[in-house]
């Protein structure tokens, strides 16, 4: 079983001993999936991604990749196994050029030619990054910086991408474009996507499957459409109102 799958089984995680942020989190994701985590602030959504990356201590339960236990492994080892992570907020190196930023994503790769080839592939996915390759990252707009961040983790040719609030601080038009890029990565490159979103409606629309986290546990789950139409989910987590309405 558990072939080609990243799975969490009854994961409990803590930043401080004794204070469990996650309780009994079980979920699975394959390279065909886009999965979206939504929920209130402080529910533990970002912590799920950090637990997978070995950035927070998993006290109980297990995380496996294609059947292999990777619980509490070091982040760099997890990256080498093909799981990439785009943290929350703008995390580009502002004083470096776009090209230098992309190269930083490949610091675990030894072969320089391989790095250059991968950068060319990233330029195909995000043509605007090629146009701006010599510009310092801080001169780029928010949406362009988000593309640098997504491009930067593509350089290790990941099987899975964990993205924490890809639409944070982006204008409506750019937000839609970023979700389109995420779908394209999933469909064209077969990268399994696990994303956290507060723009829950758009996040769930882009996703095949969604989980609602609250107080560190999974409260609801279902296809993106099911969750969007679920009255309780809408009332408690989407701010009520019409599920069809877009920002």
């Amino acid at each position, binding site marked *: 079983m558990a072939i080609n799958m990243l799975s969490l089984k009854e994961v409990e995680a803590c*930043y*401080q001993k004794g204070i469990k942020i996650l309780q009994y989190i079980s979920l699975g994701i394959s390279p065909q999936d886009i999965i979206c985590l939504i*929920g*209130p*602030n*402080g529910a533990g959504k*970002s912590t799920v991604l950090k637990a997978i990356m070995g950035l927070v201590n998993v006290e109980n339960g297990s995380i496996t990749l294609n059947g292999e236990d990777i619980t509490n492994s070091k982040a760099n080892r997890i990256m080498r196994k093909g799981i990439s992570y785009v943290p*929350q*907020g703008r995390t580009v190196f502002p004083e470096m050029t776009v090209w230098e930023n992309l190269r930083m994503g490949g610091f675990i790769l030894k072969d320089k030619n391989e790095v250059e080839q991968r950068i060319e592939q990233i330029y195909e996915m995000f043509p605007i990054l090629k146009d701006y390759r010599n510009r310092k990252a801080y*001169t*780029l*707009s*928010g*949406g*362009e910086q988000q593309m640098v961040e997504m491009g930067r983790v593509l350089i290790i040719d990941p099987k899975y991408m964990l993205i924490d*609030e890809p639409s*944070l*601080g*982006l*204008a*409506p*038009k*750019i*937000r*839609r474009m970023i979700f389109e890029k995420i779908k394209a990565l999933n469909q064209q490159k077969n990268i399994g996507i696990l994303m956290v979103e*507060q723009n*829950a*409606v758009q996040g769930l629309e882009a996703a095949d499957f969604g989980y609602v986290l609250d107080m560190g546990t999974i409260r609801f789950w279902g296809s993106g459409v099911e969750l969007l139409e679920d009255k309780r989910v809408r009332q*408690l*987590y*989407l*701010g*009520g109102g019409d599920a069809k*309405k877009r*920002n």
Partner: protein
Amino acid sequence: MSLEVKGVVKGFGGIRAVDSVSFQTTKGAITGLIGPNGSGKTTLFNLVTGFLPIDEGEIWHKGRRIDGLKPHQVVELGIIRTFQITRIFPKLTVLENMLVPTRDNSLWHLVSNPKKGGRPEKALRLLESIGLATYMDDPAASLSYGQNKLLELALSFMVEAEIVLLDEPSSGINPSLQASINQWIKEENSQGKEFFIIEHNMDVIMSLCHHIVVLHHGQKLAEGKPSVIQQNDQVLEAYLGD
């Protein structure tokens, strides 16, 4: 009239981040500032609040010229702001953070009783309504990114101010809290506090703002009532998309 921005220019290297922008805000109103990423909104906030010097133009507040003032001097005039990236005291508790801006800021007070502050009832009511009451005795460092944003927003309601500039108050915040945040903004506004808000969430902008200014490539693309802005073809094209 409250804030008056007249022909303001700010360049970074070869880029004109704010390019001859002029507009006014109305005293006691809620004014929205929208535009694509990189259109100069946050830069404009930085210019108004003295965090960046302007290259050309003038900024006035109630008949007094305020460009050239230092940030603390602008604060003394009652103009305060929040940041896109939150700035709170990580080692103080959530409640202590809330009380910091309400205290007597004399040096003696800071030394003698750094944690005591005014109006704890309001602080508690605010924390309750944004879901942070259970964390009030925890150090702010233990909050998540979104909770940090909520705390900073709540803090801005604690300050005695004439004008509050909010930089993307709804980003990173769960939509279920939006109604209570809007309620707070309306309540504070009804007591005479003016707001100037950068926001990408159009529901928030349209339901709160009396007047909207749209920036694009550093220039003013349009301004007017929400209902008018929503129908403006140029705004739809540049910002809202199809």
